[in-house]
Structures are given as C-alpha cells and as structure tokens.
C-alpha cells in the first residue's frame, strides 16, 4: 500500500522550514529532492568505493568499476534496455546535444521537432540550420496535443524526428509510440526527450521502439550532474564520437587509433561515477515503491490539484487539457506576473517555478502568455500541501481584487 506520509520520512529536506513555514516543494519538474538512500549512498561511495574505474588493476578500482557497471545495469533494466545501450552523460541536455553533434547530417536533410519542446530539444536542432539542415516545427492544437497529421506527412529527407514524451509546461503526454511508428515508416530515426516522463511512469524503450531516449537523473530522485542517453544497438554504428580522450579507446598509436565499443565509446574521460552510483540507488528506491504505484498516486493527486485550482476565481490554466498529462499545473493570475506569484508563495514556504520554463516559443507563440507559474508534483507531495497551496492562491487573488 503506497503511503506518501511514510515516503516523506525518507526525504530529510521535506522537514525544513522556509521563511518560517513548512516547506511545500512543488518544483519537481525542475529538480526533485533526494531520499536518504541516495544522500547516504553518495557518502558511502566516497568512504568505501572511490577510485578511478575501468583502467587501474587494484582492488579499489575494481570496487569502483563494479559500482559503475551495476548502476548501468540497473538503469538499463529500469527502461528495458541493454546495458551497452546506456550512455552516461550529464543530463538530458547533453544527451540531446551528443546526438546533434554525432549523427552525420547532410545539407538538405530535415529534422522534425515540435512546439512542445524544452529549449534543450530545440536549440541543438536550430543550431544545425546554419549547416543547411531544414528544421520543421510540428504545431500543437487547442488541447495542447501535437498535430499528428504532420507526422503522417514528414518532409522528404527527414533524418530525425525528435519530440518530448511529456511537456514541462502543458503536462501533455504525447503519443510517442505512434509518432515513432510514423517516423520509422518514413525511414527516419527518432529521439524521445523523456526528462519529464521517466521519473513518473514506466517507460519501456523496446515497446516504444525509439532510437534515442534522453533523461536526467536529478529529476528522478538521483543526484545532479548525471543523465542518460539510450542509443538503440542497431543505430550506434551510425554515430561518430562526440568527445575523445581517455577510456574510449582500445589502443592509440599516432597513426592508428582503435576505439572502444559503445557505451564506453561515447564516454570520454573519467566519468561521474558518484552520480551514476547515486542514480542507481534512486532507481532502486523507485523500484521499491513501484512505478505503477507512483503513477496511480500522482494521477489522483493531479486530479485533486486541478479540482482545487479550478475553484479559484480568475486563475488562467495553461496545462492539463490533453487526453493524458503529467503532474503539472501551469497557470497565471491576471494582474500579476508569474515571478510575483512565485515570490508571494515563497513567503509562505511554497516553492514553485515561474517564467518561461525554458520553453519560450511554446509559452509566447502558442499559449500567448508572458510566462507562467508552475506547480509540479512528485510522489512525496500530499493533498494537505495542495490545500495550503490553493488557499494561498485564493488569498493572493483576494488581496489583488479586494
């Protein structure tokens, strides 16, 4: 039986006071808090396991190598991939950039992305325009769903279709399986930005059949500075190296370099072993609770959040209209900028995000807003926190119009 109050005991930061009030942390789409298991695990790594892995023959290095490899195996299993298909990077941004630098695009090729994207799945592709690559933007409809027609009529020479699995603004969960099928029919590769989906739902790369999938560890209870790029085995050979240096070679002579096999081929230099180890522990923690349980609880909580938010007079909601959506509420209070809303909530210990959420084209061009306030939930949030949050929003609107 899933018990959020029991879960909360695993997260020491949730006991903190902010401006004299109990912390209510509603900025989980930006980053999540860490359970004791992860916090203490990182300390354990440095107390017991630390060495430079892979190369050294001594026992401690073997311990560090084992920790690194086991983390890779855990994460592979978590998304139903093979360990060799898991590349450790800093975050989803680096994962997507790696693909944008390593896939051999030719002048005249097309990349298809969408208006739902975070800047991290937009700028790496817009950068390619100067090399003569066409970038097509798929639009959204009035329910914040991607226009599927566009995927049925992809531009000629589409090399890559890249899109978000779950929007960090509208919450929209996209029909990834169908988009990938359509892209493959047009002989295009596919990249899924899963930064907002992997933390909240069971994601299975074999079922999706995507070629690339990117996510960040820190948005799923893991440490900062570690992320994952999944590259399907059959596709790995198409990529050139992104960075070169230590650990990614078998042999180096000045005139002859023999490279290592993936995943090491894409992991130049000493890696963030502490981060990978910590992310492995975060995955253990999520598994111990069960992704199905998390999904079910968040769905209930999100429904309650929307029900309470809609009771507030004058609030403009910019999320949650799609058939499926994640635990995100984006909104504005007319007469205040989103930064001001965040500022006032912070006075009561309630931490939300405001501004453009690194999705300026979506918010400005499509939602026609000058920023948005955003509350985003995770497994440790509660109904009582939602009550406190919506009560405070009511107070703010009363102050403004009263």
């Amino acid at each position, binding site marked *: 039986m899933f018990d959020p109050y029991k879960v909360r005991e695993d997260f020491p930061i949730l006991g903190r006071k902010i401006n004299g009030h109990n912390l209510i942390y509603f900025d989980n789409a930006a980053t999540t808090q860490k359970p004791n298991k992860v916090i203490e695990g990182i300390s354990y790594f440095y107390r017991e396991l630390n060495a430079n892995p892979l190369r050294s023959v001594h026992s401690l290095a073997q311990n560090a190598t084992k920790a690194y490899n086991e983390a890779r195996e855990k994460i592979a299993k978590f998304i139903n991939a093979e360990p060799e298909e898991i590349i450790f990077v800093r975050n989803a941004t680096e994962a997507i950039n790696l693909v944008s630098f390593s896939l051999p695009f030719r002048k005249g090729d097309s990349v298809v992305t969408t208006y739902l994207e975070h800047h991290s799945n937009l700028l790496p592709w817009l950068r390619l325009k100067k090399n003569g690559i066409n970038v097509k933007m798929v639009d959204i409809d009035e329910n914040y769903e991607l226009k599927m027609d566009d995927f049925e009529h992809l531009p000629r020479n589409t090399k890559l279709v890249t899109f978000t699995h779950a929007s960090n603004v509208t919450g929209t969960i996209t029909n990834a399986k169908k988009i990938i099928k359509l892209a493959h029919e047009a002989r295009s590769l596919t990249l899924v930005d899963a930064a907002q989906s992997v933390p909240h739902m069971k994601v299975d790369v074999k079922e999706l059949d995507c070629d690339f999938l990117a996510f960040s560890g820190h948005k799923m209870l893991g440490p900062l500075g570690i992320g994952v790029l999944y590259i399907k085995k059959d596709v790995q050979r198409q990529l050139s190296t992104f960075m070169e240096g230590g650990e990614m070679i078998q042999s180096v002579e000045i005139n002859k370099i023999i490279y290592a096999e993936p995943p090491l081929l894409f992991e130049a230099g000493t890696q963030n072993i502490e981060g990978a180890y910590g992310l492995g522990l975060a995955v253990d923690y999520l598994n111990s609770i069960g992704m199905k349980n998390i999904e079910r609880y968040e769905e209930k909580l999100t429904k309650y959040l929307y029900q309470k938010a809609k009771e507030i007079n004058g609030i403009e909601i910019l999320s949650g209209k799609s058939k499926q959506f994640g635990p995100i509420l984006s909104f504005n209070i007319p007469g205040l*900028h989103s*930064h*001001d809303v965040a500022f*006032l909530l912070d006075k009561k210990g309630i931490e939300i995000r405001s501004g453009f959420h690194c999705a300026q084209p979506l918010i400005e061009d499509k939602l026609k807003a000058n920023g948005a306030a955003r509350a985003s939930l995770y497994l440790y949030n509660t109904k009582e926190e939602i009550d406190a949050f919506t009560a405070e929003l009511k107070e703010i609107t009363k102050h403004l119009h009263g």
Partner: protein
Amino acid sequence: MDEDRFYELSELYKNPKHKGKIENADYKYEDFSISCGDRFSVYLKTEGKKIKDASFDGNGCVISTVAVSKLCDFLIGKDISTIEKMDLKDIENLLGIGKISSSRIDCALVGLKAFKRAIESKNSNIY
C-alpha cells in the same frame, strides 16, 4: 521586502506612470530582456544634456515594471549623465525597499540596464 510593501507596489503596477512610446525619442532601446518574462522598450527625450521626458513600454513583473516606472519619474529633469552613475542601491531606494532578494535583482535592474543600453547604443551609433 515584506508582503505589505509588495502589495503597495502591485497597486502601482495596475496602471504604471510613464508607460507608452515616445515618438521621436532622442535615445531608445527596444525589446530589452535579461530575465525570463520581462521585456521592455525605453525612450528618452532630451534637450541638451537635460532629460525632458522618459518612458517605457512592454511587460514585466511587479518589481521590474514599478522599478522602471519610478525610474522614468526620477529621471525627468535630471542630467543625462545621471543614468550611468546609477546602480542597484538607487533602484532599491526608488522602490522604497531594503535589500532586494538575490532572485529578484534582475527584475529590479532590467529598466536601468535598458536605459544604459539606450545611451551606449546611441553613442556607438547603432541607431
């Protein structure tokens, strides 16, 4: 800044003074933005070195909007060189608040930075 002061400023935000474009401005900088969600244009009308009129246009939060509005009010009648000498402390004084929290410094400064940019760009003949 406490909530009471914030709500006082939010009253000024509803209908800020000096909002609107000055046609034939001697100095201007349009669509200036440094922090997410604030975007301002600023205009100055001068006579010799004296600022005859100052205005802004665009959208931002309570802090940025009231700060640029009060800045316009302050600048009218002053020497043009006043602008380059101003800093965060002066904006905090105009807003009538103590030290602003670090996350709102960009908001407080966006108007002043736009005016500084307007003068620099005129001097370097961008316009």
